[in-house]
């Protein structure tokens, strides 16, 4: 791993050739997806694709294939790109930043740094013990799950790039402002004292260093397998529910049965306990949007599902006292509700 890279023309050809072939196969599958299922269900199986059952079934198999392809491709690319970044590097970049600019930088780095919320606690201690201000650390921890690759892939696949760009921008704003607010509130007294007393020792290893392309590709393949294995049941349930709504709920149902101005906070409140179903919620949300739920409400719901999760808050309890966890949840939820109202007003 740390040995100098030996030049193997054969290995390089295999690596890049394999990547090129996989890319071509991927694009081909993505292109023929709808046509293939229409042919198989309509022409071969003789189903009426205009009927409710036919339409729902087509929606289900087409969406499942599309999302599986998008997840595979984008998670691989994102993991390989992120293997050049590390939490250690991010922390070094954030050390000594002033609040404000530092919060925005932390939010941006939260998106590009390879990070899983299962490491939230050691990362929190590592940042704060190294002198990164609390608010800037929180900006990083909020942005990382909020603007995550699974959410982005699903948004892109279901709503297109404009909504995806809007979501990313809104996520960065929420993370920056919420972290800044937490910093201004001076909540350091609600951090467990051992965090500040933690002595960082030893020589740091930068996990991004000394990796070969083969290592990075291997990490990409493993990440795809790990994520797909973790989320496929939720994904299938979500797409299934979405398909049912798609076929059976009348169009514009949500416009005629409007929940009124309380729709956004209700959506945010419902999103908190739904964290583990993030992958499953998106296809469901697409169907809700199709039936007339306003885009701001839909986006607020998604943000709440991915950014505010009970399991993560329970994890953070190891380092944060309840008043700080409550402030964190309240500040982030307020930000998401504001974004929801804003988008409902302008879109």
């Amino acid at each position: 791993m740390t040995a100098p890279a030996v030049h193997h023309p054969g290995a390089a050809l295999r690596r890049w050739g394999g990547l090129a072939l996989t890319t071509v196969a991927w694009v081909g599958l993505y292109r023929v997806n709808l046509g293939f299922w229409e042919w198989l269900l309509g022409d071969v199986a003789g189903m009426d694709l205009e009927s409710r059952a036919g339409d729902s079934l087509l929606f289900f198999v087409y969406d499942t294939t599309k999302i599986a392809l998008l997840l595979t491709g984008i998670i691989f690319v994102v993991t390989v790109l992120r293997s050049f970044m590390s939490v250690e590097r991010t922390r070094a970049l954030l050390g000594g930043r002033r609040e404000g600019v530092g919060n925005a930088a932390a939010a941006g780095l939260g998106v590009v740094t390879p990070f899983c919320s299962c490491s939230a606690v050691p990362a929190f201690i590592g940042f704060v013990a190294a002198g990164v201000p609390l608010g800037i650390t929180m900006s990083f921890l909020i942005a990382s799950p909020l603007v995550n690759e699974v959410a982005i892939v699903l948004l892109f696949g279901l709503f297109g790039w404009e909504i995806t760009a809007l979501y990313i921008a809104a996520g960065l704003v929420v993370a920056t402002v919420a972290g800044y607010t937490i910093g201004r509130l001076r909540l350091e007294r609600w951090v467990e004292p051992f965090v500040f007393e933690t002595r960082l020792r030893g020589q740091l290893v930068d996990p991004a260093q000394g990796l070969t392309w083969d290592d990075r590709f291997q990490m990409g393949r493993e990440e795809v397998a790990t994520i797909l294995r973790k989320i496929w049941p939720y994904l299938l349930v979500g797409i299934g529910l979405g398909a049912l709504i798609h076929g059976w709920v009348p169009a514009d149902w949500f416009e005629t049965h409007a929940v009124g101005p309380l729709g956004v906070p209700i959506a945010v409140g419902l999103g908190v306990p739904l964290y583990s179903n993030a992958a499953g919620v998106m296809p469901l949300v697409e169907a809700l949007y199709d039936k007339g739920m306003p885009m701001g409400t839909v986006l607020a719901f998604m943000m709440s599902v991915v950014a505010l999760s009970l399991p993560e808050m329970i994890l953070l309890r190891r380092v944060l006292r309840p008043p700080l966890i409550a402030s964190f949840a309240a500040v982030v939820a307020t930000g998401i509700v504001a974004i929801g109202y804003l988008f409902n007003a302008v879109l």
Partner: protein
Amino acid sequence: MDIKILGSGCANCANLEANTNAALAELGLDAAIDHVRDPGQIASYGVMRTPALVVDDEVLVSGRVPSPDQVRALLADRAG
């Protein structure tokens, strides 16, 4: 040789432990693996992404699961 796996019980921590055990068996080394789960202790090693492999109090790998071959190379360096 003092071997520690740092990680609070994620799937990858178990994978790293398995790979390390495999590497130890191949090398014919008899060393106990200590699994550190306390977040404060994990952070004190400077580790911010689990799992991590620590040998004789030095962090060799963090934030990813090295293959059994890679672990074996790292451990052979140490033992040799």
